[in-house]
């Protein structure tokens, strides 16, 4: 396989892995717990920014960009700190965004937060270099690879795959547990769950923090592959795309959202590349987003469960002794 094709495959795979991690995070928040996190992309961005500044080295050493917290921390510390930062930001946002009782209200507030954050990052270049964003973010272990970019690329794919496995282990364990069941009950009827003794607000905050941390991790993994991050990478459109992936794939089903990530974020996005260029630049993209809007409406109307809906869980009834006599 020629190196161009290989590099293309590597890129697709890394993006797929990153999107899978992100979708699992959003699925935990929205598909399972019913929390409409319209600020989702904000957390992925924070993870990307934090991982970047912690790998770029001190800002004073750079001639073309300014940022906070410059350091050159060894791998995997930037990723770990990025994940923690995502959780902390989620805690801060949850403090007021989860105050209203109505979930659509909460979603509005989160949307607002993500927009303000974007405005602030652009107007404060000292944070993350403003509109131009960060560039030349170093890749971990790249010096060890004398074989060139392709060999390193496959290594990065393997690393991404490793993180995916870890995240899958975590997500699978949590959603199959009584806590997962509690979150699903919260999604169905938070008031009723409250009346059974569960502190619904606290559980919402927990799931928001966990999802935020996962989103941040996905950002960290992505940024060190693509090498840069700017405000253009994180608009409402990106959050919208993740929601489409989850709804189409199957909200509430971890396998379903992987399919959604592959189809919507992978196939659909890539298909755009192969269409003959028509109209002015950007026309194809607007038609693409219109199609996505129609797709969401179609799925919400005809198949709200998605392609692979949440599966029904049956619990084995413990064997009961027959009334008298041998079993």
């Amino acid at each position, binding site marked *: 396989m020629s190196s161009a094709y290989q590099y293309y495959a590597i890129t697709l795979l890394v993006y797929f892995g990153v999107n899978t991690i992100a979708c699992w995070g959003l699925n935990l928040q929205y598909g399972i717990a019913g929390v409409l996190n319209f600020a989702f992309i904000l957390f992925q961005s924070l993870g990307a920014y934090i991982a970047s500044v912690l790998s770029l080295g001190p800002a004073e050493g750079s001639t073309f960009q300014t940022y906070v917290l410059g350091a050159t921390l060894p791998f995997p510390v930037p990723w770990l700190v990025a994940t923690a930062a995502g959780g902390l930001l989620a805690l801060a946002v949850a403090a007021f965004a989860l105050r209203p009782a109505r979930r659509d209200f909460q979603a509005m507030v989160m949307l607002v937060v993500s927009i303000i954050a974007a405005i602030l990052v652009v107007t404060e270049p000292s944070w993350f270099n403003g509109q131009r964003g960060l560039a030349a973010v170093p890749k971990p272990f790249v010096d060890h690879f004398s074989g060139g970019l392709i060999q390193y690329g496959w290594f990065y794919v393997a690393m991404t795959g490793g993180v995916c496995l870890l995240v899958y282990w975590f997500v699978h*364990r*949590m959603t*199959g*547990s*009584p*806590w*997962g*069941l*509690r979150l*699903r*009950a919260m*999604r*169905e*009827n938070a*008031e*009723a*769950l*409250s*009346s*059974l*003794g*569960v*502190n*619904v607000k606290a559980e919402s905050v*927990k799931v928001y923090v*966990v999802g935020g941390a996962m989103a941040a991790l996905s950002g960290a993994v992505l940024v060190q592959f693509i090498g840069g991050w700017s405000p253009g990478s994180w608009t409402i459109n990106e959050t919208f795309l993740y929601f489409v992936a989850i709804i189409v794939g199957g909200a509430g089903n971890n396998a379903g959202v992987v399919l959604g990530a592959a189809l919507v974020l992978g196939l659909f996005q890539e298909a755009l590349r192969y269409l003959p260029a028509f109209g002015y630049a950007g026309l194809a993209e607007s038609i693409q987003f219109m199609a996505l809007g129609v797709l969401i409406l179609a799925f919400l109307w005809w198949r709200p469960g998605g392609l692979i809906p*949440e599966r*029904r*869980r*049956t*619990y*084995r*009834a*413990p064997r*009961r002794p027959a009334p008298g006599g041998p079993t």
Partner: protein
Amino acid sequence: MSAGPAATPGPAALAVADLRVTYGGVHAVDGATFEVPEGRLTGLIGPNGAGKSTVLAVIAGGRRPSGGRVVLNGQDIAGWPAHRVARRGVIRTFQLSSEFAHLTVLENLIVAAPEQRGAGFGGALLGKRYWRAQQAQIVARADRLLDEFQLGPSRNLYAGELSGGQKRLVEIMRGLMAGPSLLLLDEPLAGVNPSLRLVVESHLIRLRDQGLTMIMVEHELPTVERCCDSVVVMARGRVLAEGSMAQLRKDQEVIDAYLVG
């Protein structure tokens, strides 16, 4: 079917004093005062708009009162959030169906069990080995309850797919799974077919005999007569009278406000 032991009522499990709930200029509850004796099934009846469901909502913590007190075992719980009141053993069912629709009937029950090892974030992280045994016990308990209420075959159906009456039963069972010391039932038998009604009523009486304190908002007077030890009549946000059905039938005020109209 007479309504249980006719002895004088014991200590009050719950006392509502001068409760007021006002919103948007409407006095939904306008100075309600009554007591609920321990280990008895108290009926709460009255015409539409009397404030009965609002009183239950305030007791259960879903609603803030504008004034008055709700004393549970000597402590004023008025204004407490719902989950805190529930932790004290006060569990309620709702007037509008509030089952967890996209969870199976069994899941509706097991999610209500208190003190679950795997239900917290940390416990879930520790994995199946930590919580599996306890969950099996909870599942067994839920299955027994399902059999008692004759809903065993619906175990793995989504609760949203059940009939209206079956949903009410699921809510009652779900409330029971939470291990209440005071159970608030808001029209629990609405939509339940007549044959099942008597079964459920006998369950309620059995629970009462086992010592569970209950308040039941009900419209069907025969049910109230059969199950309730005493009855509180409300109208226009106030308590009109308290007593047994026999006593109330003789009370002119009650007759004017409710039993006739």
